């Protein structure tokens, strides 16, 4: 199978070489230009662009670096004369573009590409965008920091709940980072809504900060601003490859998410765009992913044979993402609601949340010494208050509620405005955290 693919590829290359070597006799010559909007760094895009241009010398690739938000806005506002491709990690950004009819369908002809990676399909089932690499979520830590603060080495999500890690952990907000959103969603689906929120809030009690951009977390861990970050693998792996004193581990329950590329609707250089998709999925393109500065997980299975020993393989290593059965429909219904809820309970009330958990940790230590029954009861109540969500799973998927967080449509009536729900949740969080703190303080004093 491998050889046939290889031969196909060579045949394709040969065909293209023919087109550009001789007169453009083929029906689909590549255009002279290809404009790609991307949120990836030059370290990632550079090698692909160079190799593609070498393969197709007649086509000049123009890279426009924009943050994901700016990229989506740019494509939305430039409908009349759009760039050709959008190339980024966050699957939610592609969903937004797809819903806005800003992407066009294509069926990549490459074979030997995995159907699914981790919990989700590699490609958009409707064919509007394509996964070209996968990435897993995990824990990145600064070795100098961990040593200086005598922290244990974190291995599992549950480790991050430990009192030792108080004030040492960072994350980006799911409303700001599509990949963090998927991690949060995976935890909620894996552990169930109530237990999942309890875990998130308990880990949240140890947060040093909630960053407004994905790259803020590895930046802070690299600098030693805090010691432990919940990040996507290539942030940790590429920082290590660049020489920072950091390590990255996959916890045994993690989520694997594809990084994507899509062709913009109305792209003027459609043939070149299609060729670029094929190139990314080709053996040569996929092998580039192994570069230490890129460090993404290929979706072409055969490429793992060339990978250095110890390179994570989500298709062989069963613990990488396969334990959770991820339900896309569930995720989609509550997407916007979940972002807002996380911000209400954690991002905007981080001070109150961490104060509550600080008191709970102190009380836990005190109660384990005093063995006071009264103290244990108070403490259990405090924990419950500091780890519960204001709405149930059923409410979260109720269109009357979830719809308030989506674009207003006359045919979709909602129970209340977004701002009204947010105010309720905010009040819930403040009240609970304050009460949890005072209960924990009572528990610590109980004899």
């Amino acid at each position, binding site marked *: 199978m491998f050889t046939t693919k290889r031969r196909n590829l060579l045949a394709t290359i040969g065909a293209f070489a023919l087109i550009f070597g001789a007169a453009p006799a083929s029906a689909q010559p590549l255009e002279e230009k290809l404009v790609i909007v991307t949120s990836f760094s*030059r*370290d990632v895009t550079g090698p692909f662009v160079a190799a593609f241009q070498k393969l197709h010398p007649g086509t000049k690739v*123009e890279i426009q670096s924009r943050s994901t938000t700016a990229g989506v806005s740019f494509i939305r*506002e*430039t409908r009349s004369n759009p760039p050709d491709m959008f190339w980024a990690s966050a699957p939610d950004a592609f969903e937004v573009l797809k819903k806005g009819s800003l992407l066009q369908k294509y069926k990549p002809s490459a074979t030997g590409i995995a159907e699914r990676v981790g919990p989700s399909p590699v490609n958009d089932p409707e064919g509007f965008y394509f996964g070209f690499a996968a990435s897993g979520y995990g824990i990145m830590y600064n070795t100098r920091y961990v040593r200086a603060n005598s922290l244990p080495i974190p291995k599992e999500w549950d480790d991050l709940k430990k009192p030792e890690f108080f004030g040492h952990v960072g994350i980006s907000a799911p409303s*700001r980072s599509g990949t963090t959103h998927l991690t949060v969603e995976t935890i909620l689906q894996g552990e169930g809504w109530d237990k999942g929120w309890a875990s998130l809030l308990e880990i949240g009690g140890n947060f040093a900060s909630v960053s407004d951009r994905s790259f803020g977390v590895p930046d802070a861990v690299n600098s*030693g601003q*805090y010691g432990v970050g919940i990040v996507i693998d290539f942030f940790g792996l590429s920082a290590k490859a660049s020489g920072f004193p950091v390590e990255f581990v996959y916890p045994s329950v993690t989520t694997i998410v594809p990084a994507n590329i899509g062709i913009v609707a109305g792209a003027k250089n459609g043939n070149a765009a299609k060729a670029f998709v094929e190139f990314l999925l080709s053996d040569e393109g996929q092998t580039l992913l192994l570069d230490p500065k890129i460090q993404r997980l290929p979706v072409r299975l055969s490429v793992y044979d060339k990978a250095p020993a110890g390179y994570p393989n989500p298709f062989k290593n069963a613990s990488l993402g396969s334990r959770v059965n991820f339900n896309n429909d569930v995720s989609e219904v509550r997407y916007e609601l979940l972002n807002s809820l996380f911000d209400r309970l954690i991002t905007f009330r981080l001070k109150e949340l961490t104060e509550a958990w600080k008191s709970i940790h102190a009380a836990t230590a005190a109660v384990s010494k005093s063995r006071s029954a009264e103290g244990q009861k108070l403490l259990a109540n405090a924990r419950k208050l500091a780890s519960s969500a204001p709405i149930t799973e059923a409410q979260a998927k109720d269109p009357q509620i979830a719809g308030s967080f989506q674009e207003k449509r006359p045919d979709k009536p909602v129970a209340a405005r977004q701002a009204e729900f947010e105010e309720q949740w905010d009040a819930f969080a403040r009240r609970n955290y304050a009460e949890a703190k005072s209960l924990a303080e009572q528990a610590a004093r109980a004899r």
Partner: protein
Amino acid sequence: MTDVAVQPAPVRRTPYLARWAATPFHIGCAALIAAYLVAFLIVPVASVVFVAFWDGSGFTLVNFADFFRTSIMIESAWNSIYVGLMTVALASAIAVPLAYFTVRFRFRGAAIIQTLGVVPLVMPPFVGAVAMQLVFGKNGSINLLLMDAFGFRIPFMDGLNGVIFVEALHYFPFILLNLSASLANIDSAMEESAQNLGASGWRLFSRIVFPLALPGYVAGAALVFAKVFDDLATPLLLNVTNMLAPQAYLRVTSVGIADPMGYVISTILVVLSVMAVWLSLLALKNREFATQQRGGGGLSKREISRGERIAAYGFILAALFLALSPHIGILLLSVGTIWSFSVLPDGFTLAHYTTIFREAGGFMSNTILYCAIAALIDVVLGAMIAYLAMRTRLPGRHLLDQIAMAAVAVPGLVLGIGILRTYFPVDLPFGAGSLATFWLMLAIAYSVRRLPYALRSCSAALQQLHQSLEEAAENLGASKSTTLMRIVVPLMAGGILAGFVTSFATAAVELSATLLLVTRDANAPLSYGIYVYMQSPAGRGPGAALGVVAVVVVAIATWLSFRVAERDRAKRTRSGMAI
């Protein structure tokens, strides 16, 4: 100093023009400015912000009611006001002595101190944040040293007080520049009279000198307040979200969100910023700051005693060291190999500079070009608006001032989206592409965003200028435009220069609108280059090196402007052109 009687307006004018105290030239200027603001500020911003007033089918104010019913919004509003006021206080404590020393005493290198005083305004995106954390952060150099030596930390960058600390270090140049310009305009005769009457030292400063320079101080303080009030970079860097600007930003920039609250907050930010400036102007109302004597070269410079000199130098060095420590951090970052959880980088290298000079030469010239155009537009518009608002009675003149000022609170991303929405469909002739992505549009976007700075500086300068000087010129037969060009503009030069420098320096590091409007590397400015590098761990060094380049570019431009201004002033003084 003979008193020039106010002359009745010349007779051969239509009644309207007389009532407005305006010439057709003034009206033309007003129309031009209005057109510029409508085209590049109001229409683009309105095309985005209308969502705040839209409930899916019609006009609504329910979103504004929601704002006032939401406790986190009210809390954020108070936090923002508190941080704004405290920052003005702290920034004044740094800037007022610095301005006074440099203007008052005979110092060697006053231009250098003034230049270094501007540099804090140039905080390159991302790089500045990383450097700030590496120097002042919980595990930054200073705290690591403190922990080692004494076993405690100082939470420089914690919560609202951290925001105040960082903002004050960042924006005190607004006060420094405007106050210096004002101080330089004070008539030395005033000071001498006071001295003859026995005032000296603190009494002379607090009763005569400072009050006369008040327009400059108020302009600077109002800008600091408005800028801090609307700044989102610093709170986000410190992960403080309970302030208005970050609340608006987090909502406006979430992918694909149609939530109106972000635009509601933006609108409220605009209203509150304009109100703050208006209140500050009210504080100056009914007072006279203008003096007629000019050309004396400002306050008499005097030699200072040895003790005073040591104290003054001590303060200047301490203040500049504090204010420039983030830039020292950026410099270290740009020549360091790996810098992580340590006082200094592990090793030093020049490789990052080779990288950027190989890859990023064009960014530099683009930045200079765009920012110079933007700053030029700003001082021209700023001076015209100030003149129209203060010297004519044209209807709507204050509205022009307020609209221009509102730009201070418009998020760059909103302006960027608005410009794309309005001008992308407009094609340039000769196949030059769309108007929205044409390079000149970047300069225009910068000019709109930075106009408030130049406007406040120009207004302050004009406030100190006595109208009788213009009337005297007109009585002697000069036309309005000659008076403007030969009398008013030269006498406002200090304020215009301050406006130019602040606009230029801050435009050099603008990112959010840049990210939307740049379409080709060849047209990209430095801030875009820094963004591109700072997206990966390996790019931190080259990104910092570009940051250093941005700082150097601005510093050289600033220093040159001061040199030119000083030479100009010296020339005027020497030739005895005391007007």
